[in-house]
């Protein structure tokens, strides 16, 4: 057999293996019901501003907790093991990565989507008034 065929077949096998193994690495944004104590999930939702945001660096700088409403309307406590991100209160959308631990969702990562800080309109309106 020609070597190029061997290489080609190996490449195809490698591609299939990679594709199979990678399909486990992707997920959709889930909700708190999907989350359990095994394996990490990404949950997307909005900040529940009715409930307390807690961060006290005097007690523990690696502990920030807040409540988040997932896309099913479920509000759960989320614990982030990092300092509180700046402007967190302003975020329109929050995506957390982590798993459930008892009653709280323990997140290792949090992504926030904030309204743009450099809005031209704001400045023009200010100048106008």
């Amino acid at each position, binding site marked *: 057999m020609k070597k190029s065929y061997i290489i080609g077949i190996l490449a195809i096998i*490698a591609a299939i293996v990679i594709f199979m193994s990678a399909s486990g690495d992707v997920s959709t944004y889930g909700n708190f019901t999907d989350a359990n104590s095994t394996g990490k999930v990404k949950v997307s939702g909005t900040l529940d501003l009715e409930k307390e945001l807690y961060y006290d660096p005097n007690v523990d700088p*690696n502990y920030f907790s807040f409540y988040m409403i997932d896309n099913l309307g479920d509000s759960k406590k989320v614990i982030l093991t990092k*300092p509180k991100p700046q402007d967190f209160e302003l975020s329109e959308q929050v995506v957390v*990565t982590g798993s459930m631990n008892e009653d709280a969702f323990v997140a290792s990562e949090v992504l926030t989507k904030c309204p743009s800080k450099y809005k031209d309109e704001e400045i023009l309106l200010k100048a106008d008034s």
Partner: protein
Amino acid sequence: MEELIYTGEHLLPGKIGHFLLLLGFVSILFSAFSYFKSTKSEDKQWISLGRFGFLLHGIGIFGVIAMLFYVMGNQMYEYYYAFEHVSDDLPMRYIVSAFWEGQEGSFLLWSVWHVILGAIVIYNGGKWESRVIFTLLLIQAFILSMILGLHIGFGEYIYKIGSNPTLLLRDTMQAPIFNNAEYLSLITGTGLNPLLQNYWMTIHPPVLFLGFASTSLPFAYAVAALWSKSYHDVLGPMLKWGLFSGAFLGIGILMGGAWAYEALSFGGYWAWDPVENMSLVPWLILIAGIHTNVIAKSTGFSIRSTLIFYLLTFVLIVYSTFLTRSGILGETSAHAFTEMGLEWQLVAFVLFFLLLGMILLAINNKTIPSKPKEESIYSREFWMFIGAIVLFFSGAIIATSSSLPVFNKIITYFNPEYVGRVITEPIPHYNKYQIWVSVFITILSGATLFFRYRADKWSASNRNRFLVAFGVCILLASLLTYLMSFWISYFEYRYAILSWSCVFGMLMAIWYFFTEGKANLKLAASAFSHFGFAIMVLGTVTSGLNTRIVSKNPFAMQGLVKDESMSKVVTLLKGVPLYVNDYWLTYERDSVEGRFRYFDVKFEKFKDSVLVESFSLQPNVQYDNKFKKVAASNPDTKHYWNRDIFTNIASLPRSQMDVELAKELEESLEYVSYTPSLGDTIFTSSKYGVIKNVVINPSKTDSFNLGVGLEIEFKSLDSEEVYTVMPSVALKENMIYEMPEVINPFNLKINVQDTFFESIFTNDADLDYVKYVVKENEPFIFKNFELKLNGFKKEVENPNYSEVENDIAVSADVSVRINNEDVSMDPVYIIRDNKPFSIKDYHANSGLHIRFQHIDPGTQSYTFMVAVDKRNFKAIPMEIAEEVPRSDLIIFEAKEFPGINLFWYGSISMMLGFLFALIRRYSQN
């Protein structure tokens, strides 16, 4: 409607700029047409015309850039590009950064490199000029169309092609402010994003865009080869440009990593961010192309793969441009530009060149020379080709994963119900594959060096040489990998294998260079670059995998998180040392310089109670352009030869982060009012304070006209600590300011209310003046003050007096004995417009007021009015808040990166490899 005439606008630069932009675009068409003609005809006239068109094109591009710099440098905010990217307070050195902050500026930067590279091709001339420059102009046409700003109407719809940077602000947006003819005096620029205000932003984009632009040349040569169906002569120039591009794209990417590591707070040089990935992928494919190009040049194999790799490299560069600039990455990337509505134009850009490459390959497939015989497995070209395939695979995996948002978008287009997928944990996902790619590549890059081109089988001597090198390097690498395990941890077998393969590749490269290559600089290119690559990958294992959190308190048990591995930061109170992993940390002081606030943190290491190491680091936070909130946190790193200690301010107390938050916090405080008298003691729930003294003009009110402070000594009921504070009130320009004090360890905030000012300093109208008519040198007594008029001063020194023309002013020289101290006071008597006035002098400490009221020249007697403040030290109005959050702390992060220099030295060695290769290829001519 009547046209408004706006004041202060400069319209000429915009008109010139717009003209130059159009010139730059139209000349592309002219030049490309001429070059196209020149490929069909022998007539040299067409080439000359093409060059002339290219010259005009260059003038247009350089001209637009000059115009934009002119309006930005002069802060002409009537131009939207200046308005959006500069501000009055932006230092001049950031004007260039501001220029390429925007999409338009960065497109111009990209295209200006094309002009310069194209000029080099034209200067060198040669038979490829027409076709290469034609292709380059085609690319330029797409890039320039992004900033053309044409509006084409089809019935109701208006299609916008590009965004024109020479437009006026009032033409790009509608706002009521433009109804005002004076609008220019009301606006100021938005300014450069504070995150981008550092020198990396000045150097990283031009290098990266040179890298981007240079990939167009191997592409253009590949197109030219297919177009002319002539494949052999092209390999030389193609390789030179491939190497050039590989070097600059590589440096550009590495600079991005260096920027992230040195100036950004995430603490690392690579984050598998989609934008980083999509600049890495074309580089990987380009490296594959360079290797197959070398094969093709030496053996005639792999011409087709070389063309494919080079065509693909450029298409991937355009694709990464699409990802960065279309906004499709959304929240998955930190790099995205602001959206400009150019998505479809960018899609057309990608598709055009993808299809162009594919069609050219398809129709010329038969004409591409290929060898009937396959490469022998004993030949260098065989293993190099395998390496190129692995690189291609690596790029394909990264590109596919990074394109997930694009796939989501496409599927949603056909199936709106579809829920987009994301990679749950990107870093492990990418690492999982790239570990094995790196293992393959490092082994191949070391071993392949020992193979010979076109070798069908091994000669006995070659085989022996190879086997010796191979055997020794395997053993040595195993030993070194084992020894390294005392320094760093591999955690799992995969990383042990990767480290081994890196050491193996490195040793093979060294061996090759000194034995096979005989330290000859001709062969230094592959030795240095392969050696560097192996070292670089090893650096990622040592520094990335073995990152050690320094800012972790091993004795802290009170943490709320049970899993100790989660804690990455510690809270440092000002002046209070804290023991963390190996070091005592002390946050010593903070200082403000411009928009930066620096925090000095001292590191001390003790061994058997002896101080063995001590140093300070100064991470800082950067406030935004209006000084209202923290915009960025900038790390500080201590570099050792074998490791780095990286520090960063992870967070600050709320009151220090943001003016708005500080205000909110202040409003949430619950103050309790007190009305103590001097000498009284006041009690809060757990502390008490003694009102010690009233201090006139304490030093903290130095910048005010007049101030008074209350010295209070605070103690706690349950500790020995004593804090003395001086809350004050002070006057400046008819406003009274309260200056509260905070005792952080007691969580107290103490404020004296503004009415205290009036109880110490009596209003002039409320004073009871006593009148004295005296002669010179005649003493007189007012209450417990002894006064005497000593004479008169020639110059009026009283600071309250400001001279008016034709004034007749006489300044008295009155000495006053106050508490056994002589004080000189100089009240002033003035005749202004035939009317008498008096300007009083005031002695703040004693509260004495003196007015010089009248002069009687006949009797030589002088009238003074004297009064003293009605000082009230009783019922001092003050308030105290308890449970005030501390503001004197930082949330501090410190990490150690072992062996990070392996990464940087490896990078440098790899880039030196490129340099040697370039020197060699250019000196061949």
